[in-house]
């Protein structure tokens, strides 16, 4: 049961243009969403997140949009740079209650290639 899906295995974008990475989820209990970026031979690094009570969160060139009715989130990178070339994972969390952080469920990842 794939609760978090990234349906595009790869995306190729020209430097300076916008990159849009998409993620769909099925579990309506998810309350917090994250994007992680992964370079080869390294572990994923946290990029940006959004709470389910918001529909947009922006951090520099990165913006995450959440559409709860469609159970869809997207990551926009503007402008895209060659150093952004990496695998991007979206992840979602179900709040476990109390002081517990809860468990993250990851999508399959999208390989972003930004061409100079």
């Amino acid at each position, binding site marked *: 049961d794939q609760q*978090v899906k990234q349906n595009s295995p790869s995306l190729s974008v020209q430097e300076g243009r916008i990159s849009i990475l998409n993620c769909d989820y099925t579990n309506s209990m998810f309350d917090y969403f994250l994007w992680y970026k992964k370079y080869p031979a390294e*572990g994923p*690094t*946290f990029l940006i997140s959004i*709470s389910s009570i918001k529909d947009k969160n922006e951090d520099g060139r990165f913006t995450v949009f959440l559409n709860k009715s469609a159970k869809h989130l997207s990551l926009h990178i503007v402008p895209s740079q060659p150093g952004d070339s990496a695998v991007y994972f979206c992840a979602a969390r179900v709040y476990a209650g109390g*002081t*517990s*952080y809860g468990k993250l469920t*990851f999508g*399959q990842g999208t390989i972003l290639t930004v061409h100079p």
Partner: protein
Amino acid sequence: EAGVAQSPRYKIIEKRQSVAFWCNPISGHATLYWYQQILGQGPKLLIQFQNNGVVDDSQLPKDRFSAERLKGVDSTLKIQPAKLEDSAVYLCASRLAGRSSYNEQFFGPGTRLTVL
């Protein structure tokens, strides 16, 4: 600040052999996670520790996988005996305790296991 350390970085074994992975989290991080990432998939949580106690091991194949976090600091993950389908990258992550969304998970570089 030192990151999450993992060793070895690469391991090749034959099926039915045993293997162990080691993780040292970021100093002060009470929560430690082990993930399995199969090629083309996102990380899947195997086990979560809070200090030296297990919080979630629902996806750990307990007939062959075991993990411990003695003294609430570093951790080892063991597979005995290994199967071909265990070939994957094993990622360790840590975070500060508590529910705060500002305390995200930090990942180590992973151990790439190949089972022949």
